């Protein structure tokens, strides 16, 4: 049940190891990592800057995590989201869920990232070949979040 917002990169192996360490009730670990791509909507992207709303971000992530724990029998959850400037190939976000059962771990992982994308107050600005631009919210993200029903 950990939520972190940080500028620093994270060590995926170390984070996942501490999530499962000592808990032999865990049968499945689901993970999603979001990374900076070098292209978006056909335009080359050289860097990405993540802005957020300190205070509300943590509250929103904790709310999303609590919702996942209500819906699935989870052993533990982890959300780490970076802010600041990142380059292509850099990690942006890590979401992970452990459960006795694989379906719960994977479904909850998908749920967490779908909801995070539409509810947590982060904004991306891209540096592209054609200058800087704010990333537009995607309808496909709203649809992905809506699959899981109302909060």
């Amino acid at each position, binding site marked *: 049940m950990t939520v972190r917002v940080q500028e620093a990169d994270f060590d995926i192996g170390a984070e996942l190891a501490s999530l499962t360490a000592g808990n032999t009730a865990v049968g499945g670990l689901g993970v999603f990592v*979001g990374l900076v791509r070098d292209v978006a909507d056909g335009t080359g992207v050289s860097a990405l800057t*993540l*802005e*957020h*709303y300190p*205070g*509300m971000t943590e*509250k*929103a992530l904790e709310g999303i995590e609590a919702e996942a724990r209500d819906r699935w029998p989870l052993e533990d959850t982890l959300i780490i*989201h970076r802010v600041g400037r990142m380059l292509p190939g850099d990690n*942006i*976000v890590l979401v992970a869920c452990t459960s006795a059962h694989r379906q719960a771990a994977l479904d909850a992982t998908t749920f967490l*990232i779908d909801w*995070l*994308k*539409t*509810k*947590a*107050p*982060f*904004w*991306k*600005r891209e540096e592209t070949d054609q200058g800087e631009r*704010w*990333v*537009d*919210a*995607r309808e496909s*993200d709203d649809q992905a979040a809506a699959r899981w029903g109302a909060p």
Partner: protein
Amino acid sequence: MKLLYFAWVRQRIGAGTEEVTPPTEVTDVATLVDWLRARGPGYAEAFKDTRAIRCAVNHTYVEVDHPVAAGDEVAFFPPVTGG
């Protein structure tokens, strides 16, 4: 009342945060936006299309009919794009 602006809302207004004391006719988010729009061209530009803007009062998403009062923290920002 503390106001916060993020992403292109912040850029258009030219500030990330400000303390304001709106007149008494500002009672909810909608009347607050109307009042802000009249404060200058940056505000007018930022709030041109309110469908493109989200609002949170005290860290909770709200609709435009949500009341606002002295002491509230009110934030305006575009739809989120993290993850």
